[in-house]
Each structure stands twice: as C-alpha cells, then as structure tokens.
C-alpha cells in the first residue's frame, strides 16, 4: 500500500480502492470490510484525543544479548522503517478527556514480536496505570515472543502477566484490543488476562503459528480457525469492534469500569 498513489488494492478482496476513501474509512476496505494493519502512530492518532499522547520510555533499545545471527540487521532495518526502537509505543494519553495509560504494538516492527524492550514497555504501561490510578489500554499486534532473545523473551510473558496482577490489586481496569495478528507468547500472557478483551474483525488470534501446527500434525481446521470470530464463539473475548467504533467503545468502557477512578480525581 503506497499512500502517495491515488488508488490501491485491498489486501483481502483485491478490489481497487481510492486512497482518499480508504483513509477516510480508517484503512478498512469499503467492499469487504478488511481491516488493514496500521502503524502505532496512526492507531494512537485515530483512537485517542488529539495531541494528548505523551510518549514514554523512548530510550529503550534492544541489544543482542544472545549474539543471535542477523538479529542486529533485522533490528536496524525495523528501526529505519518505523523510526522507533521497538514494536511497542507507550505513554500517557487521554480518551474523551479521561487519562489512560497506553501501549500500542506495531506489527511492522519485526512482526510485533516481544523481546526484552517490548516486555519492559508493556510492564511499565501497566505499572503506570496501577501507580497513577488510571485505566490501561493495550493494542496487541504480535506474532509472539521474539525468538532472537531466547529465554529472555519467554520470561517477558511472566513479567508482563505479573504487571497485570498489579493492576488488579490497584483496582484499575485493563482493556486489551486484539488486532491482526495477536499470537502465541503475547496471547498466552498479558493479552489474555485483561479485564476486557475486544478484537478488530477478522484479526488472526491464536496460540500456535501455522508452521508449528503443521509440524504438530494439525491438519483439519475449521474455516474461521484462529480468528477473532472463532475466539468470540468460544467465549475467549468480549466483543468484536470495528475500527470506526473503537474509540466510542473504549470510551464507554473507561467511563464505566474506570468510573470510580474519575470520581476520586474530580
């Protein structure tokens, strides 16, 4: 999808869409409703109050603790592509005037994979919510734990999940939004223990990647396998919310579940 061009092709139904229409429709295909992936920056701009976002933790950058082959090259390429050090962009923002602690994943940065930096930023987002008494909202988009940081990545699952526990103790709501894709180590940690989980339509959501399933001999799968719709049907998420309605839905959730926090502040 080249934004500079006057029209482009939907990645799902392959129909041609005018760029202006596409942008106005929040990069959702007007024909088939496919929600195209968007950057963390765009997501923040479209979801939270204008100019309310204060980014934190911009100084965290992955090293190569395992000396893993080609990892540094992959990191530098992703850094150049996104202008960020990591897949997670975190900070404070306002949603319809209400303060929230947010973290937003960008699949464009190494598949949104969770290494030490992503784990630290998610943890800080949740801790900030617990410590400052505001709801946490996390937009997930990840293939899972970052292989290139080995066991350090796996331990981020425990670290981030422990931080969710701190939100519960502090009585602040935590809302997770599953966007395409929310997988494996991210799904099996902080993402799945949110108070409320909403997902974008048709988002890929699952534990085992296609290759892993294939190796394990999983062959026959339902048509909607590992989609947001499959999760909803099996009681694993609360709702499917189209991009256009996301801001309104999150606002209602923050007003209600986080209502007690607003009264204290007022």
């Amino acid at each position, binding site marked *: 999808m080249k934004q500079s061009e006057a029209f482009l092709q939907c990645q799902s139904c392959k129909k041609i869409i005018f760029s202006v229409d596409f942008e106005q429709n929040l990069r959702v295909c007007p024909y088939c409703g496919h929600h195209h992936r968007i950057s963390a920056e765009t997501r923040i701009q479209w979801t939270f109050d204008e100019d309310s976002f204060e980014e934190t933790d911009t100084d965290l950058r992955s090293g190569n603790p395992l000396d893993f082959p080609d990892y540094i090259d992959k990191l530098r390429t992703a850094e150049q592509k996104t202008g960020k050090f990591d897949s997670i962009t975190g900070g404070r923002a306002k949603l319809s005037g209400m303060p929230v602690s947010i973290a937003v994943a960008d699949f464009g940065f190494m598949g949104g994979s969770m290494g030490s930096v992503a784990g630290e930023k998610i943890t800080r987002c949740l801790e900030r919510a617990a410590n400052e008494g505001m709801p946490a909202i996390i937009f997930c988009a990840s293939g899972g734990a970052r292989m290139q940081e080995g066991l350090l*990545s796996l331990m981020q699952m425990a670290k981030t999940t422990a931080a969710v526990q701190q939100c519960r103790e502090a009585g602040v709501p935590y809302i997770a939004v599953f966007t395409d894709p929310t997988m494996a180590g991210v799904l099996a940690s902080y993402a799945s223990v949110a108070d409320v989980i909403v997902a974008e339509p048709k988002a890929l959501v699952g534990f085992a990647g296609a290759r892993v399933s294939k190796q394990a001999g999983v062959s026959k799968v339902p048509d909607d396998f590992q989609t947001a719709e499959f999760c909803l049907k099996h009681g694993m998420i609360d709702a499917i919310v189209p991009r256009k309605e996301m801001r309104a839905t999150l606002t209602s959730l923050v007003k209600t579940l986080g209502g007690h926090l607003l009264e204290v502040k007022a």
Partner: protein
Amino acid sequence: MSAMDHNSWESELRELETFIANAKERSRKEQNESDKALLEDQILKLEEGRDKYLKALYTNVGDWEKVLIARAQKRPYTQDYITALFQDFVELQGDRNGFADNAIIGGPALFEGKPVMIVGHQKGRNISERQFRNFAMAKPEGYRKAIRLFEMAERFNMPVISFVDTPAADPGVESESRGISEAIAASIMKMFELSVPTVAVVIGEGGSGGAIGIAASSRVLMLQYSVYSVIPPEGCAAILWRMPERGPEAARALKLTAQQAQSFGLIDEILPEPIGSAQRSPIEMFATVKEAIAKHLGELEVLTPDQVREARFAKFRKMGQFDTVAPAKK
C-alpha cells in the same frame, strides 16, 4: 553430522556396554581357571575404557546434545521424582469444568514430613503411555487443573513444587477452542498471587509457554542437562532457514542450556547431574534434587506471606536485557 536422538549419540558407549556384558557372561560360564582370570582382567580394562569414554562423552556436552539428553526416553520423569522424594502423594484430577488432562499431573504430598502441593508435566515411556500423556503437551484443562491446585495450596498453606518437562503446550484445534492461551496466562498470573513459597525444577525440556505456565516460581532450578527455550530448536530452524533439520545449529543460537539461562540471571541454581546424566544414576539425581528443594524451601520458609509475593514479583520484574540510549528519531 549431529546425532538426532540420545540413543544414537550414545551408540558407541552402548556397543561397548553390550560387549562388556557379553564378556561377563562368557566369564561366568568359563570353567578353565586361567582362561577365566584372563577374561576377568580384560573385562576390568574394558570397564576402565568405558568409564573413560563416558567421562569424555559427558565433558563439554554441546548445546544440541543437551537437548537430546533432556529428551532422552530413560530420563527420570515427574512421577519418578514424586515416588522418590515424597510420601503420601495423592493424584488429584480434573479441571472441574468439564475436562481432564493427563499431560500435567499433581496433588498433595509430604516432603520431609511437611505438606506440599506438586504440579508437573508427565511424559510417557512407551507408545501407549506417550499417547495417553499427549507427549506431555498439556491442554487448557491441564493449566486449569494447575490453577485449582495452586489455589488449594494457598488455602492450606502448602508450598508448591513444580516439575517442568514439556516440549510445548498442545497446539491442536481443541486446545485453541478451549482457550489454551488464556489458560497458560491465567496460570502464570495465579502463581504471582500465591503467598506460599513456590519452587520449579526443570528436569528435562522447558518448552516455551507450556513450561512457564507452571514455572513462574519463587525459585527456578534446572538440572545440568535440561533445556529451557522460547521455541523448540527445530521450530526455530524452520522459521529461520525453513529447514527443521538444522535444529542443532538453532539450539546453539537459542542459548537454551541451564548454564546460559543462569548467565542471563533467569534461574537460581543448576543442579549437577551424575556422570552420564540423570538416567544413568537416578538415585544420585533424586538425592541432589531433594537436597536442593529442601534448601530453597528452607530459605523461603522464613519469609512472611507478603515478602514471598514481593520477592517473586521483584525477581521476574528484573528479567530482560536492553540498552538505554538517546531517544529514537525519525
């Protein structure tokens, strides 16, 4: 060319052992005294040679070879440790929500006279057992049973001992539809809620999410030749090079050994294995594991419930390695 399983890695050793066994049999049957003495002498030399070979084979074991040892079919499994280290174990089953899992087992037992709760992955020794145990790949109900046992441990003030030995959590359609990811996440979270001490011992394979699901413990110990990894080496090789057979290379890249886990500050202690690994002298291994569990429980026992929880949070909070630099600019 790397060996692809533990048996073939030890094949020369096995040949030597078979040869010695045959020689012993011949010596037993030998009537002629001087021939018998000659044979006995040769057997002694052969045994010396075998010991030397064994020691050499187990000196500087490669990362991939540790994977093979960790997966070895004769390695002691969770049930073996339960039998050897605990008394009055009663297996408790079911998730009380419609499902039972046989890849994770657990229940209360006495450890040195004191009540503890045990939770562990269980592998099978033969084909039918392996199928029954689903190759130690737990489904959601396995983690939900674990949560039930963790809650019971908290209620009755019993420390929790986990034995970790799984290739991964079950990746099937059933597990997805019953929420395997949520079950693992909820189990990890439950472990952070506990105010009783928790000790996890990685006895074989620590396979990614399936492992950490029962290992977010106050203390995490690994046997010398056990492995703990974010992804199986074959899976890593499949992603990196689209060649699962390059597992040995991926094993080195992943830094999945106990020694490397310790160097990253992710585990608390490495428990040395007997020469030739745990399977060669299980009794010796059991004694080492027992002593280590007793030591760590002893250290944790003196903490207040709040201190137990805080120490566990603090331990995992520190995990991760990154640089802090001037902020990124577009």
